[in-house]
């Protein structure tokens, strides 16, 4: 077990300088999700137009892995169709199970090391589970 496999530089960069942190004013779908095992929480907002995610912002409390994952995810899904973002969430799950996955948004691949730290997988998937919830709500809203 090597800590550097988990805490890669790009992860620490997202943790230190999270992208898309904050709130969207008006017209966004807002979802909240908790990680009941540790008390971490996230608020994710999606602004969807014509089935495409125009903007995604988050705020929350969490560890480096959960915040970095949320930061990367909100960047990665920008401009994507809702269904495409769901496919990315599936790909992310597969990566957490140890499968080799490539992302157009390459930073995400840095999180592949989380697979070797089973206790931390929930941290990494919190934002993605919020995304799944947000997509369902966005579709329902139409």
């Amino acid at each position, binding site marked *: *077990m090597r*800590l550097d496999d*988990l805490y890669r530089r790009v992860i620490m960069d997202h*943790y230190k300088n999270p992208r898309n942190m904050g709130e969207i004013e008006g017209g966004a779908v807002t979802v909240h999700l908790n990680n009941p095992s*540790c*008390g971490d*929480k996230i608020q994710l907002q999606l602004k969807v137009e014509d089935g495409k995610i125009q903007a995604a912002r988050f705020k929350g409390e969490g560890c480096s892995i959960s915040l970095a994952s949320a930061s990367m995810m909100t960047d990665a899904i920008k401009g994507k169709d809702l269904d495409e973002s769901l496919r990315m969430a599936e790909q992310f799950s597969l990566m957490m199970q140890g499968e080799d996955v490539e992302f157009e948004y390459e930073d995400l691949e840095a999180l592949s090391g989380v697979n070797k730290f089973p206790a931390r997988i929930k941290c990494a998937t919190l934002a993605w589970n919020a995304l799944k919830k947000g997509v369902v709500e966005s579709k329902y809203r139409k």
Partner: protein
Amino acid sequence: MNALEIRKQFPILEQEINGHPLVYLDSAASSQKPVSVIEAIKRYYEHDHANVHRGVHTLGARATDAYEGAREKVARFLNARSPQEIIFTRGTTTAINLVAMGYARTHLKEGDEIVITPMEHHSNLIPWQQAAKATGATLKYIPLQPDGTIALADVEKQITANTKLVAITHVSNVLGTINPIKDIARIAHKHGALLLVDGAQSTPHMKIDVQELDCDFFALSGHKMCGPTGIGVLYGKREWLEAMEPVEFGGEMIDHVDLYESTWKELPWKFEGGTPIIAGAVGLGAAIDFLQEIGLDQIEQHEKKLTQYALERLGEIEGIRIYGPTEERGGLVTFNLGDLHPHDVATVLDAEGVAIRAGHHCCQPLMRWLNVTATARASFYLYNTEEDIDRLAEALIKTKEYFGHALG
């Protein structure tokens, strides 16, 4: 008491984690088990197992003796008046729920009050929330002092003539606060209220005398006191247990069964529907023997020294924030390290072979009171040494360095 010698009786502690000798500092979540407990369970299954209270055959009698013998051991350990006041449960949670379901829900009504504190574990909080909702009773909180203790003046204020039940932890699993149970019992009884004590964090570490504490109910878990998981105890004063209805119905707990009506066995069996956790009770009995042989007073003294040492060593680390009272506290230290999330701290510590707990410790309201989402916690037991605490302190300094570097 020689912790190094005691440690040798815990096979699990003699292993390496991530290339380092294991330092186990999570006993408040669950303690490890000595050989004598593991052997007692093995011996029971290899020689004495059958179902209890029914077999005419020899093994049925041996199993019943083993199970009821464990109950007598628990009764003596807690200084209960009789083994009939000892109900075996799955753990503290089940024990508290039994009182919430079997007593609070049947005896409380609108206008009555249940008084608890914000430092309760979820298992001594949610059962009362639910009971209050179901009965229309009001749930009230004794506020905490800035150092995480409670003031008797506030206890006096919150407990009124309408209070029917007070439920409080003996020792906080986060703050380490030791609550003044005898005083609280006196105040509760003055108003005719019953007192339930959550003893999950006290029973493993100090001598418990339920008659001296004068509590009406006392709940504990076997697995935090060197016993197996899946076994716990509800102690109750006989008159309250008699007044309670069973919560689980079925085999083992009945006296007479008709097509439309049934009657229950006497105490304690009316609360033990179904085949009980026999091997668990045997294991708990062995754990009690083990603890008593060393002596609860010795264990308490040992942990007091360790805690004092930990407060000193950890206090030297720049940026650390330690929660809870500085004196008169249980054997654990809860803290945060700078802005680091406790998950990240615990992961680096684990890489160093040091096992601590990180999270909300089943105390979300208390975390909000502390104004944090989560904390890290190192908790001590009879097998821990000052060297373990040195390893913890060194690993924490490494954690700071690691993230200091990684965060640039």
